[in-house]
């Protein structure tokens, strides 16, 4: 039974407790950031090899009403991960999917990937998650705090969250919680939705249209790129599987 995150953005206040806890648990150093050329509370600007978790800020006017959306971004630990499918074509099992938890993990073997391989892997990810440590060549992203989870503890970001935004547990339980919350949130936000719940093990509850959070909030937003053979094959797997699930 895979483990699943349920991220309820309707509760998020962008306190960034998760972002900081992630850094502290993984002992990642602080980036030197500036507002110059950027001008946003979203810092650092993007995921990077020192930030596996990033709270994204997005705002817009909806008539007279100001909408300010927060999106604690991270790897979705896809049910059938395209990054792995692409990666396996070059270095089999440099990217692994943990059987017990469903965690998608970039092992040290990902250092063998070339810059080009990495680009392919990143392009294959509909959520634009993988990053590469320029020094070591290691591919990086959320680890599901696999060491913590294996010893029966919660991921660091979930433990730190003071608002109930970050939840973690058995997939079945999280789906249940997500459905409950969705029903409640829809009273105030009729357009509220769950992002790709069948495909991923990190399920976001959104109260606004996905594009009002982040360019890659849901898979369907991912830009259509000219595809090479590898990513074509990888993406191919997804709708097929969905059909299969539907039939099953």
């Amino acid at each position, binding site marked *: 039974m895979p483990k699943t995150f349920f991220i309820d953005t309707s509760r998020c206040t962008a306190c960034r407790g998760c972002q900081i806890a992630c850094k502290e648990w993984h002992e990642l150093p602080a980036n030197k950031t*500036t507002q*110059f050329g950027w*001008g*946003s509370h979203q810092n650092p600007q993007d995921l990077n090899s020192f930030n596996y978790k990033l709270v994204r800020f997005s705002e817009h006017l909806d008539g007279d009403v*100001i909408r*300010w959306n927060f999106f604690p971004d991270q790897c979705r630990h896809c049910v059938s991960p395209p990054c792995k499918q692409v990666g396996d074509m070059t270095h089999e099992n440099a990217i692994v999917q943990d059987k017990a938890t469903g965690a998608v993990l970039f092992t040290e073997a990902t250092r063998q990937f070339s810059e080009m391989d990495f680009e392919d892997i990143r392009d294959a990810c509909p959520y634009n998650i993988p990053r590469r440590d320029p020094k070591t060549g290691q591919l990086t992203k959320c680890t599901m705090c696999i060491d913590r989870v294996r010893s029966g503890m919660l991921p660091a970001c979930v433990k730190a969250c003071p608002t109930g935004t970050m939840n973690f547990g058995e997939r079945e339980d999280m789906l249940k919680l997500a459905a409950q919350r969705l029903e409640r949130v829809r009273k105030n936000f009729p357009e509220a939705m769950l992002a790709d719940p069948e495909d991923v093990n990190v399920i976001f509850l959104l109260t606004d249209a996905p594009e009002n959070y982040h360019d890659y909030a849901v898979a369907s937003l991912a830009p259509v790129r000219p595809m090479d053979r590898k990513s074509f094959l990888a993406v191919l797997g997804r709708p097929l599987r969905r059909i299969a699930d539907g039939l099953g």
Partner: protein
Amino acid sequence: MTNHWIDIKNADSILIMGSNAAEHHPISFKWVLRAKDAGATVMHVDPKFSRTSARSDFHVPLRSGTDIAFLGGMIHYILESGSYFKKYVAEYTNAGLVVGKEYGFQDGLFTGYDPKTRLYDKSKWNFELDENGVPLRDVTLQHPRCVFQLMRRHYERYSLDKVSATTGVSKENLRRVYETFAATGKPDKAGTVMYALGWTQHTVGVQNIRSAAIIQLLLGNIGVAGGGINALRGEPNVQGSTDHTLLYHIIPGYMAMPHNGWQTYEEYIKANTPVSHDPLSANWWQHKPKYFASLLKAWYGENATRENEFCYELLPKIEKGEDYSYMFLFDRMYQNKIRGGIIIGLNPMNSVPNTNKVRKALDNLDWLVTAELHHSETTDNWRRPGVDPKKNKTEVFLLPSAHRLEKEGSVTNSGRWLLWHYQAIKPGYEARNFGQMFVDMLNRVRNLYAKDGGVLPEALLKLDWPQSYDAEEVCRRINGHFTRDTEIKGKLYKKGQQVPSFTALADDGSTSSLNWLYAGSYTEEDGNKSKRRSAEQTPMQAKIGLYPNWSWCWPVNRRILYNRASVDEQGRPFNPAKAVIEWKNGKWVGDVPDGGWPPLATGKGRNPFIMSRHGYGQIFGPGRQDGPFSEHYEPVETPVNSNLFSGQLSSPCYKSVSSEMDLLAPPADPRFPIVLTTYNVTEHWCGGGETRNVPNLLETEPQLYVEISPELAKEKGIKNGEGVIIESIRGRVEAIAMVTVRMRPLKVHGRIVHEIGMPFCFGWTTPGTGDSTNRLTPSVGDPNTTIPEYKASCVNIRKADKLTELAT
């Protein structure tokens, strides 16, 4: 806070104004949301859309510095619509009191104004008294000079049109807020007001809060569960440091600081002890002599006797009417009148207005003692950018200080609860706590005086001063003890034993207490009550979240102030579902009532507002410097050149200093057309001294920014992320533009006025992050408090050619 944090959950309507509670008091917001979950409406009125707005039912943007117009409009609405709580207003407030014939108000000025001194003669606002000295009262509220009628006339001018044109709030939004909040005027409904520095940091700060007090009295929201006026005090122990008075104008327990006009103890007592001839008025301050004498006994110990007026003579006397607050201190420092001093746990070189002047003023000191956790813009002012340390004469000491976890002692939360914190670890490195520093320093000074003599050594040598610092022992002294064997209610207390309550304090020298309000916090019977951690409560107390056995709160463990106003004359709660107190079987149950007298109907009761002289809630407040009613005045720096409510543009009484560096932009100055407001950022603490030193927090908020609307950005040709220069008449600051729809252009006086906002947590000691925003703000202050007008000043903004303060 009249009430306390948990009590917010009892509200039916919550008006958050001048506060960004969700970001700056996050846990308090838990109680706001609990009220919301139970059906309360949460409204946020604030220039900027913040995370508080995002979690409220609605957000209403208004122009900084126009809160009184907004609230005056609400008072007008409440009176016009008749939504006030009539019985409460008539019986419990001074609405029915008749004001003397000399009172008047014309074109923005109350009677008694002297333009030369910029002061009012407040005797013009006195109540009319009968032959026994009791105020005349018309409970029908019809007398043309009764407070109610004066109020009606005063706020008649606050029409929706004028309020909207002044504040920039649409009439629709005004109506929405007014209707929602006025709906709490029913006996079984409560509304609470949560404010913070967004109200106090104005030249009309006190009157902002007075406006709220009038509204809350009209709606019967004072003294009830879920009501009150709740100051979300900002700093960690700012309630306690105010109670114990690191302030010039009062002494502990909210008693006036002696001035040169009160030469003797008797003169002080006479001038400061109010007299009421109304048998229904408790007039609590009649007991002041007991509190004052006990304070002097605590300060001077055995040396204070009745015969020597408890050493009153030795006390410093301020010059009557003189202001010794930091605004004036730095002005005198700038004029070279100050030789040396101590700055602990404070970073005025970042957080005081007109920082350019203040930084220069500090150069004039001969010596300066600082005590901090980290280097700050204040400790290292002598080496600030652009100055040559070799030309700076000041001898500077920087003492490493211990933080909260490294010491034990008590703090007082915003709800007046005393909370003991235990020492968790030894101070880091060579750090010491402030208590140790002061005890050691004064002992050394005393020793020098004992050995070498000097000027008036007895003022120091007669102090009852400890040899070493022991928080527990000082905590005992704060409560106070008997100086001789005394019998209280049949119980004999030995000399040296703790007093059980402030009712035991006496003016004959038999008691000593460092703060009468805290008497009862550390008793023989129950020990140090700030350590109490019991969740025991009665079902009645549980209903409204009252925890009488958890710690202790001043006064006398009363959790909701003025709670006698929550019951009718029979002692029956106006809102039985959320009763605070109730008269049951001949005694009060629930909270500790404001005095134990039975209900008013017994004839032996007292009016509920026991701290005011006549016992009534003060809709008419004749004690303020700037008028008995609130009145809208523009901020000192304003983008408009007229006031729609009167010919008086800005406060006639505001305080200011006047050096060549204290420039003020004239009204509607085309050079500075934009309103600037300043605030905190969640990730950094106040001036940022602590948090800027945490790399992961600095990563999330790395640099000084300015939030501007897309409309203004377009007008100025500024793009998001570009470096900009913000200029006021006093200084210029570099920042990065953050273009955001969370700042809205406002329609004021028929045209668009832009407002921008900046945090003030960055300083040059953290290189590349930017420097003090307060170089822009003016040294003008509220006439009652001298709190400066941080929240509204006028600036301009332009694209920067190059940046020197910010890393790029």
